[in-house]
């Protein structure tokens, strides 16, 4: 539901806030996340150097969710996002495009070949001379390697595939680089993060830096981290990309949004990702 300066209440967050109450929600910030009794997630970490003047600690969005929502992420059998991971596994193995290739033909088992990949994207690609999100890299393989059609940037085929590719990185620390040629994109993303947009004149930082931990109507504000993306949202019962979330948050400032996959959102993703350097990759995570 985004900011909830509008719209109707999602059932999930109604339940969340009812259970916790406004005042006690904070207590939840002590909880630990261990997935499948095996993967120990770092849900709070020392802020990366570039944020040292601003924040002491960075928190996963999981920390701010209700007990019920948190529990859904603790076991893959309860995590509704895994339905979509299975769908992506079928796509991974299916040949598509004029070259008659599947992802599996070149990358074999994603649980081996894709270890660590989610943790370092967006990433500068020297050969292509561009900053690539995971989505851009997947489409580069589809067109370049498979001679297949591009997937829609935030369509279900794409977001499901990014979830599958994230699974073998779960528990690894986000470690997105922003030096070298990526730096100018990082600066652009930072600028966007602090720009107050729309008729409500609100920047990401107003809500996610200055007021995380506070309630904004029925929503318990997190730091707006993307270590859990793509996320399964109870609100729309599907996986959601980081760009879709950015779009929703900007729209809710009564602004003219940017498009998923736009240069602005790629830069913003790079910047926001580096604000979470040190948190664990959690995708697919569960949120309201």
């Amino acid at each position, binding site marked *: 539901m985004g*900011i*909830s*300066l*509008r*719209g109707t*209440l999602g059932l999930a967050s109604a339940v969340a*806030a009812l259970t916790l109450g*406004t005042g006690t929600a904070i207590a939840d910030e002590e909880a630990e996340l261990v997935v499948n009794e095996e993967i120990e997630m770092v849900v709070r970490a020392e802020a990366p150097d570039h944020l040292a003047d601003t924040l002491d600690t960075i928190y996963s969005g999981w920390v701010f969710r209700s007990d019920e929502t948190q529990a859904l992420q603790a076991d893959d059998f309860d995590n509704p996002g895994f339905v979509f991971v299975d769908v992506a596994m079928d796509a991974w193995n299916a040949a598509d495009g004029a070259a008659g290739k599947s992802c599996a033909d070149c990358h074999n088992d994603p649980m081996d070949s894709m270890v660590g990949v989610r943790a370092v994207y967006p990433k500068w690609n020297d050969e292509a001379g561009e900053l690539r999100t995971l989505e851009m890299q997947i489409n580069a393989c589809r067109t370049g390697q498979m001679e297949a059609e591009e997937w829609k940037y935030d369509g279900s085929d794409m977001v499901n595939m990014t979830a599958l590719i994230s699974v073998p990185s779960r528990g690894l620390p986000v470690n997105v680089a922003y030096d070298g040629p990526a730096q100018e994109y990082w600066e652009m993303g930072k600028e966007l993060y602090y*720009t*107050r*947009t*729309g*008729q*409500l*004149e*609100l920047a990401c930082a*107003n809500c996610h830096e*200055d*007021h995380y931990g*506070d*309630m*904004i*109507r*029925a929503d318990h504000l997190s730091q707006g981290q993307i270590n859990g993306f793509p996320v399964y949202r109870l609100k729309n019962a599907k996986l959601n990309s980081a760009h879709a979330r950015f*779009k929703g948050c*900007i*729209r*809710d*400032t*009564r*602004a*003219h*949004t940017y498009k998923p996959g736009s240069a602005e959102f790629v830069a913003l993703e790079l910047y926001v990702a580096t604000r979470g350097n040190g948190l664990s990759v959690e995708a697919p995570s569960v949120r309201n």
Partner: protein
Amino acid sequence: MKQAVVGAIALMASTVTVQAAETVPGDVDYGEYGEVQQSLTGAPGDSEAGREVVSNRALGNCVACHAAEALVDVPWHGEIGPVLDGAGSRWSEAELRGIVANAKMMFEGTMMPAFYKTEGFTRAGDAYTGDPAPEDLPPILTAQQVEDVVAYLMTLTDE
């Protein structure tokens, strides 16, 4: 049906009279501290209607950021801004009008949106559609709604 027609005519009539005296957003006269002396409609507001604007998420949605004991019947109060109880004792009517119309005139850089402002935005949108704003972007609240909210806030006095 007949009632609806009569209502519509009454509404048109009142809009006409209101517009005659209404101050448009660009002409609001903010004082040194961001206060606004003159009623934007030239008439006092209706505090009951103001209570609805404060509570309703499609209107002012002030409770997204502010809590108030006086609004316990309204679900979900935010904790971004100060509690509104007692605002009518803390502030004069002119100050409250300024805060609601454009709080940035009083509290520099505040997170509180300007509810009676139509220009000077970055990527203004068409309400919550995500599309670009129309040429004649209306303020978030009408002059009447601002006055109604001010009238309501004036009722929130310390006992």
